[in-house]
Structure formats: structure tokens, C-alpha cells
């Protein structure tokens, strides 16, 4: 722990790097970064400093200084990760607010790529890529979130099922010792457009750790086409199992850009863009689908989709045109309405995981069972399924959601109990992996991954021997 005068001296050094107005230990400024909506799991804590570098050289100098003094650093791009990932674990941490670094370095329509700094949000990027009829792969997160941080977290599932799940091509990262590493083809040339070919897949290797490995200052990602031809369908089902065959067909034949199975009381409201509709009169689950494509292919896809709908056992729902438009915007134009879920009861909790489509109904049943066991009422239990990979049509992102009143402290306790039970149960049932390295999830997982856990720890030790990259939640 530093003494007050040491703290002031340290601050002066940092201010010499980033400018006086861009580094502070002001108590109130630090307080403003102390908590996110996941505070029932990750308690509020103030960083000791907030530092706002303007470029990678400043990032490098700050990191080296922090490394020398063994001060934890929390990179923060937009802070909207909803899992407490930018809340300090250790006393005396530096919160490295990267939002000033918000340049779009390149949009390359030929290569269909964008290279961005951490402060670039999906909204900022889309505004520019639309001119080329291109878009990034979107999360269902508000378009105020950082593209770079979202992809770097490697937990992305996206609103378009045909985008696959590897959007990141290469990046540049500053390590705690001040060295800069570049991954993929970026390491060999000025062309950052290819991920593989330089030894192992380093691009993947540095992602999705608890804490981070360093600070990513620039990232190149894929862009995807925007098509003029689009059609939206909503099909109702009474249970989770019935539509799985239908979803499989859509994925296997690569037919739909967006496919989401949601219950009629939660995410559907954001998908349609209003709270004001008789959702309770709909079938319990609604499959929302968007078909797109170039002339000829679009019509052929649409024909097939319609034939699959007929045999799906579902009921086609006639929604107002504006619901369809909102779903299109939310899926392929950056989400704004998904945050409406916070308005259901005031906060939302979920366990996000990857698993096979075939287990959908089992995940749902388990979700309900565990929730009821810990005293969470049935009407708080919600569900979201999003297939994300055409290749075999099986890989899905699942969200086991609970919407609740965030100001109800007792409910927070129930949720913690729920998590504790559910992590183990899901691991027992079988999952492909977790959506994010969030609090409480890594520990039970590491217990099961054998020697890989050791390798993982040692890998981080080499990269970050002084443990400054906010890894306190686990290693």
C-alpha cells in the first residue's frame, strides 16, 4: 500500500505522461467507476486513480510505470460489460479509461475489415461502415459498447447467426513490461487482415482471461454485408423443444441471418421495441427470424424458410410492421432496445453459456428448477437461445435469465445461491463453455480442466509476473 505522499508522486508521474487533466485520484471521479449493474456479485470498489491516455505510447508508459510499482491496472473501454469486469478487485488500482482512444483507423471495403481503437463503439463504427453497405458483427448489447472490448472478451455471440464467431483478425497489445505484440498477419506486415499463419493462434490465446493479458490498443475485425432484401418472421411455440428441429434446419441450410428463440415476456419486448403489447396472449416462446440475401438467393432461401415454418409445428404470428422494423434494426443495425430488459423489473441477471441445440430444453428445465429451489418465482425466469454457427448448426448461445428488482437486496442473495448451484449443475449436464470469464464461473471450471489449468496459470505468470492486469478474481 502506498502512503499518501507516494500516491501523489505516482500521480505526478502519470500526469507527466498523459497530461494533468487526464489522470486523477480525485475521490469523486474515482467513485464514478466504482460499480456496475452486477453489484450483487461484484461489490462496489473505487479505483485509486483514473487515467485517460490518448494513444498507445501513453498506454505503454503508464503500464510500464504501473508494472514497476506493482499497481493493478484495469483497462476500461466503455465499461458496459454488465459483469463487474472493470470493477477493481485490489486496493490502489488504476482504472485505465481508454475512451479517448476512439479513432477508426481504417475501413477497408475490399478486405471487409475495420481497424479500431478501444473507444470506438458499435454505433460509431456502423455510422461509417454503412456507407459501404457493411456492418460489424453485433452483440445484442447497446451500441454504446466498445467494439474492441467486446471482441477481445471473446464471449461474443451475435445477433446474426450467419456471421460465425471469429470476428477478430488481429490486434496490437501492450504488455505490462511495455513490449508491444501484434498478432496474426499484423506481426509480419502492414496488412492486419489474416488471423493465422504465424505459429499458434495467438489472437485467440490472449483473449477471454479473467482480468486481461495487457492492453489492446488496436484491433482489426471482419465486416459483413448489408443486404437490401430482408424478410422477418415471428413464429410461436408452446415449449422450447419443438422449435429445435426447425432451428437446426435453418442453420444447417444457412437460411436465416438472425434466429432467436425467446420467451414472450422478456427479450421479445426489446425485439419488438415496446412494452405496450399483449405479449401474454402469445404462445410462450417466440422464434424471431430474419432472412436476407441477394436477388435470387434471397427468394430461394425465403421459399425454403416458409416450407420449414409449415412443418415446424409453430404458429406464424402477425405482428405490426414496426415490430418487424425494430427487429431488423436490433439485429443488423446495432441494438438500442435490448436494454429495455432492464425496464422489466429494474435489473437483469443471466448465466450465458455455449452448448448444443439438442440440450436446449434441458437447460431451460434446469434453469427453472434451480430458480424455484432458491426461492426465485417462476415468473422471474426467462430464456434466450441464439444459434451462432452454421457449420454444424448445433452451437448455440443460451441465456438463463432472471429479471428482478435491483434494489431488492434479499433478491441478490437468492441470485448468488442460484449461481453457486447452477454453475456446477450446468457443468454436470454438459456445456461447451461459458460466455464470459465472470465472477464465480472460472473456479469450478478450472477444477475440471486438468493440467490445462496449470498451463493457463503459468502462461499468465510469464506475461504478467507482477499480476497487475486485474486478475484478482481468480489466478
Amino acid at each position, binding site marked *: 500500500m502506498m502512503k499518501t505522499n507516494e500516491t501523489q508522486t505516482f500521480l505526478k508521474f502519470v500526469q507527466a505522461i498523459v497530461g494533468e487533466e487526464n489522470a*486523477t485520484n480525485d*475521490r469523486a471521479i474515482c*467513485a*464514478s*467507476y466504482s460499480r456496475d449493474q452486477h453489484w450483487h456479485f461484484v461489490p462496489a470498489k473505487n479505483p485509486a486513480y483514473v487515467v*485517460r491516455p490518448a494513444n498507445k505510447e501513453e498506454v505503454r508508459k503508464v503500464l510500464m510505470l504501473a508494472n514497476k510499482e506493482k499497481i493493478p491496472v484495469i483497462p476500461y473501454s466503455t*465499461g458496459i460489460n454488465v459483469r463487474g469486469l472493470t470493477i477493481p478487485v485490489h486496493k490502489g488500482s488504476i482504472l485505465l479509461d481508454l475512451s479517448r482512444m476512439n479513432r477508426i483507423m481504417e475501413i477497408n471495403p475490399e478486405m471487409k475489415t475495420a481497424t479500431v481503437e478501444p473507444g470506438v463503439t458499435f454505433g460509431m463504427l456502423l455510422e461509417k461502415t454503412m456507407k459501404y453497405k457493411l456492418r460489424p458483427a453485433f452483440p445484442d448489447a447497446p451500441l*454504446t459498447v466498445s467494439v474492441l472490448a467486446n471482441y477481445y472478451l471473446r464471449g461474443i455471440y451475435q445477433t446474426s447467426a450467419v456471421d460465425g464467431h471469429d470476428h477478430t483478425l488481429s490486434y496490437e497489445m501492450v504488455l505490462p513490461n511495455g513490449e508491444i505484440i501484434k498478432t496474426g498477419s499484423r506481426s509480419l506486415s502492414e496488412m492486419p487482415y489474416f488471423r493465422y499463419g504465424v505459429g499458434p493462434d495467438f489472437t485467440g490465446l490472449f483473449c477471454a482471461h479473467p482480468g486481461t493479458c495487457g492492453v489492446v490498443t488496436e484491433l482489426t475485425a471482419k465486416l459483413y454485408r448489408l443486404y437490401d432484401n430482408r424478410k422477418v418472421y415471428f413464429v410461436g411455440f408452446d415449449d422450447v423443444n419443438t422449435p429445435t428441429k426447425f432451428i437446426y434446419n435453418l442453420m444447417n441450410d444457412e437460411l436465416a441471418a438472425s434466429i432467436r428463440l425467446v420467451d414472450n415476456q422478456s427479450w421479445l419486448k426489446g425485439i419488438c421495441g415496446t412494452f405496450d403489447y399483449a405479449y401474454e396472449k402469445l404462445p410462450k416462446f417466440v422464434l424471431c427470424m430474419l432472412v436476407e440475401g441477394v436477388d435470387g438467393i434471397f427468394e430461394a432461401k425465403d421459399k425454403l424458410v416458409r416450407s420449414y415454418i409449415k412443418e415446424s409445428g409453430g404458429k406464424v404470428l402477425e405482428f405490426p410492421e414496426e415490430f418487424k422494423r425494430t427487429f431488423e434494426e436490433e439485429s443488423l443495425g*446495432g441494438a438500442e432496445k435490448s436494454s429495455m430488459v*432492464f425496464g422489466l423489473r429494474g435489473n437483469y441477471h443471466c448465466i450465458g453459456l455455449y452448448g448444443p441445440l439438442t440440450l436446449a430444453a434441458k437447460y431451460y428445465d434446469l434453469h427453472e428448477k434451480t430458480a424455484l429451489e432458491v426461492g426465485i418465482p417462476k415468473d422471474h425466469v426467462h430464456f434466450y437461445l441464439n444459434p451462432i454457427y452454421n457449420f454444424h448448426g448445433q452451437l448455440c448461445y443460451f441465456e438463463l435469465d432472471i429479471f428482478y428488482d435491483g434494489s431488492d437486496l434479499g433478491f441478490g442473495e437468492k441470485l448468488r445461491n442460484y449461481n453457486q448451484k447452477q454453475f456446477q449443475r450446468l457443468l454436470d449436464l454438459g456445456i461447451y463453455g461459458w460466455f464470459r470469464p465472470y465472477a464465480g464461473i472460472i473456479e469450478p471450471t478450472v477444477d475440471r480442466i486438468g493440467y490445462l489449468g496449470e498451463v493457463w496459470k503459468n502462461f499468465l505468470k510469464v506475461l504478467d509476473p507482477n499480476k497487475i492486469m486485474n486478475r484478482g478474481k481468480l489466478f
Partner: protein
Amino acid sequence: MEREEILSAIYHCAKCKLCSIASFHPSEEWLPLCPSGEFYGYQAFYAPGKLEIFREILEGELSEPSEGLLKAVYSCTLCGACYEKCKQITSVEIRLPELFEELREEMVKKGWALNVHKDIAKKIKETRNAYGEKYKYEAESTDRNADVLYYIGCTARYRVPEIADAMLQIFDKFGIKYQVMDDEWCCGSVLLRTGQVEEAKELMEHNVEEIKRSGAKTVVFTCPGCLMTFEKNYPDMGVELVHSTQFLTRLKGMKVKKLDMEVAYHDPCHLGRDLGIYEEPRAVLKEVANVKEMKREREQAWCCGSGGGVKSAFDEFALWSAVERIKEAKEAGAEALVSACPFCKRNLREAAEKEGKGMKVYDVVELVNRSLEE
């Protein structure tokens, strides 16, 4: 507000930061909404960050004032843009500007007020106007029993008198008899917005007495800040309170000569977001000039940057915010930026002069007065 109610609202903030930008899909453009956040950058200057500061104060973790605290809390223009966006999206009751006023009140109770705001309170105590002016703006009632009373407000009396002049001339041109208060005191808005609630009480009592005594049935305001304060903070006086633009829309047979001028209309925060008056100013303005809409308008209008005690405390920021608005008006193809608030006009005009881009700045009543045939 009760402590529990405040904390509950704070706990409901999801930190999604959608309140910092205008709705994306209508324009497919990234358009910032929060002036203080955009200017200062740290999270503390955006709504979700300020809520955390408030939480720490209420929970006793923040027990000392600091430069950052005063700046973050008092550089908020209380424009309410964040709230309009938040309620659209989340529908959770996080009444942000009200919370930020509460925060200031709490801070003032602890003695954490800005000196410049305390000075304003002192000036008001001495002169009954927010600018400490000792002279009287010259205006005479045309009929001491008139049904209409024009409450002029400090800014129109002492900083942008052309607005008050225009309003009075409009009354005359229409042959409307009016009263002005012999002893008009500051409405107290600036004190209430800066957390100095106690200091405002005497002013409110005085004005209520005077207005009651006048026997007027309708009080007309050119200042939305004063109007909002009367609506929100004053007791019901049994009189009708209207904004100048509302009053003008009622006047039948307005014979105006449309000016050959492309103008953009700037929604004043208190008039639009606080009082929901969006249509009347537009309707009036359309009669007298060619109106161009700017990208950020109505509920999602960009604030001029001067409200909430910001102009007096952080003038550089206030002017930056106004310059942003002027750029937007220019982009919309306007040669003049028209508002319906003396406070906006003052700041926007100063910014236009500073920026030197030739943008003219008016209040709606000025253009109406100009275009009214004698």
C-alpha cells in the same frame, strides 16, 4: 425525496450509457447528448457516473468535497437529455435531473457549494436579481387591472432586454393590456437548481404575494426557467401560467409578414423536456420564417450549455456546448438560430460571436415582433 427512494433509483441504473447518445436508428448517426460528459470525458460527468457519486455520498463513503466532486456535480446543465433517453429505453423510474438537484441540495447542506453560486445567492439577497444589478429595467404596466401579467425574469431584464422589449411591443401591437410587477424579484430558479433551496423561499413568497395582489388571470413568461420554476416549485396561485409562444399561438388574426430567413429552432431544455412545449414555438416560428430542423431536436435536443448554474461557474464549457449547437444549425442550412429562452439566447449569441461564423441568434418573440405589421 426519501433516501431509500433515491438509492432505489440509483440501483436501477444499468450503466448502459444509452443516455449519452441520441436514438441511433432514426438518423443512423452517432450524436452525443450529454454536454458535460462530452466535454469533460470522465464517467463522473455522465449521468450513470454521477449516480455513483450520489450513492457514495448517501452511503457515507464520500465525506469530503473535492475539486472533481464540485466540477462533476455542478457542471451538469440539468438539461434532462439523459432522462428523456433513459425513460424511452428502460422505463425504469430514474428521474435524473431531479436526482441531480437532490444531490446538489444534499451537498449544499454539507457546505459543499460553489463560491460563484453562493455569490449569486448573495447578489439576489441584496438586489433581488441574479445579476446583482442595482438599476431597474424600465417597463410600465399599461393597465394595473389587466388580466395579463408579464413576468420578465432576471435575464431578460438585465442581459438580453431585447427579448423583454419585443414581448412588450407585441402586447402593444395587439392592443393587449398588461401588467408588469412593480417589484419583480428573481423567481429563485438559479438557487433551486444549484441546491440553495432555503435561499429561494423568501423570493417565492414575495412573488406569490405580488401576483395574487395584481389580480391577473394569466402570467406570461418569456423565460422557460422562470415558468418551470413557477410550475414546479411554487404553490398553486389559481392563475394560468403560459409561455410566450403558447400565448402567441392563441392570438387570432396575427398579421405577419414572413421574413426571408432560414432559421433553426433550438428547443430550450426547460421549455421542451421539462414542460413538454415543443409544438407552439415551432408553430409560431413557421409563421414568420423558414424553419430548418436540426439533427438533435425536441426530447433529444442538444442543450445550449448554460443551465443549472453552469454559465456562471464553467463558462468555457457553456460556450463550447453552445458552439456545438451553432455548428449543428449551420449544418442544417440555417442562417439564424432561434430559441425561446433568454438564457439560451445569451449563451448562444456569445458563442456565435466568439466563433465568428456569422450565425445570428434570436428569440422567437423578436422575430414575431419584427414581422408583425405595424
